[in-house]
């Protein structure tokens, strides 16, 4: 796990880039709200590695989201939001197996961060806030994360075990 270019970190970075890419490409094909695809990757990584590493992972993932064309309206805003996501999810780290109820709570709290953040930013800029669309996206993100995060955690465990073996 040491070293900047450990295989685990490279795989996480790859997962973030693919998720961010698929999100914008799907956005061009699917009208209507889509779940946040980057958030599950950040939550899974942060749940395994704690708040400060989680925040670093979230910051990096947010920068990928910010720079992936067409980019965020404000450069760096997604980086700050996802850093907060990593911080919240990392605070939920527990030793041993992650219980489903605990996972649901962490996912719920972590995905609330970007949703609330966007609403507050919209209100601050006196733009109209589409609460129903935000809520639908939040529900979709929570649903997707509940499926994907356990899979990612299992994959990371398997990778670490094989690496140590």
């Amino acid at each position: 796990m040491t070293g900047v270019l450990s295989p685990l970190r490279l795989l996480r970075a790859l997962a973030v880039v693919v998720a961010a890419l698929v999100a914008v490409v799907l956005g061009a094909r699917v009208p209507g709200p889509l779940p946040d695809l980057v958030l599950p990757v950040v939550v899974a990584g942060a749940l395994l590695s704690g708040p400060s590493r989680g925040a670093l992972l979230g910051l990096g993932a947010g920068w990928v989201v910010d720079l992936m064309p067409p980019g965020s309206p404000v450069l760096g805003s997604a980086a700050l939001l996802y850093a907060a996501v990593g911080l919240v999810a990392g605070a939920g780290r527990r030793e041993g197996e992650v219980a489903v109820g605990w996972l649901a709570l962490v996912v719920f709290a972590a995905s609330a961060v970007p949703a609330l953040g966007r609403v507050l930013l919209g209100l601050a800029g006196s733009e109209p806030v589409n609460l129903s669309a935000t809520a639908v996206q939040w529900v979709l993100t929570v649903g997707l994360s509940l499926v994907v995060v356990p899979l990612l955690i299992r994959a990371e465990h398997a990778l670490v075990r094989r690496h140590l073996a």
Partner: protein
Amino acid sequence: MRRRPSRRRLLVALLAATLVVVVADVSGWSATDRVRALGATVLGPLERVAGRGGGAALAASDSRAARTRLGYDAAVDARTTEEARQLRALLDSPGATGARLVPARVVAVGSQGAAGPERVTIDVGSRDGVTADRTVVNADGLVGRVVATGPWTSDVLLVGSADLAVGVRVGSAGTLGSLTGATGATGDTGATGMTGASGVRPRPAGQLDLQLVQRGSVAVGDAVTTMGSTGGRPFVAGVPVGRVSSVDPGGGRFAPTAAVQPSVDVTRLDVVGVLLTAPRTTPRTAVEGTAR
């Protein structure tokens, strides 16, 4: 355990640096454009590959096929046929008559704002002659303007985004107005002395705010077209933007305000065109005055 404080220090330093970038971008420092361009150079080609296949009809428009209005083979697959149909509609639309334009497809759509998407990426860039501040149209009318270009992709700010303001002409009289993305219930009613129930109501999603800048009347159904900028940048003149859908009750305002339904559905964009020159207007011959 010795590593923990240094990691926190790194995190705090990176967060501070990000915060600096946010503040720099909000205050309009141009160095952040270079950061965006870097992202577009590295990640743009990925999007072009991962985005839609297709593009055959648009590539063909470069050659003789465009001049024969795409005499296109019927044996091509449905996607290319649909692409060719949209391109033909774009070339036949009044906004493109006589204009030189670069056909493009939308390959990526950014995060949704309150009124739908605000930024999209198209698959043409500076290598195709596209530069910043060009008008982007489709068959229905104004889509937005180019705000950033990479070598292979460009980013477009869409109509309906809060950051996009368009100078427009309204109705047959051509009254001048300014069109922006809808502001919320907290719109700038204070400065014009409007209070209480006669304040601006929040718009339905996707509608635009029209504020006339000269005295004149506006009626439901009036056509709204771009006024045009010097040199056609960022907006060429005469591109349809939408129609007035409701007029706000006036009270103490210098000029009326209204809601405009945009003619382009920004949630379903596919083939668009980047205008390099303005549409050609009908030439007029000079006449001689007659004295009696």
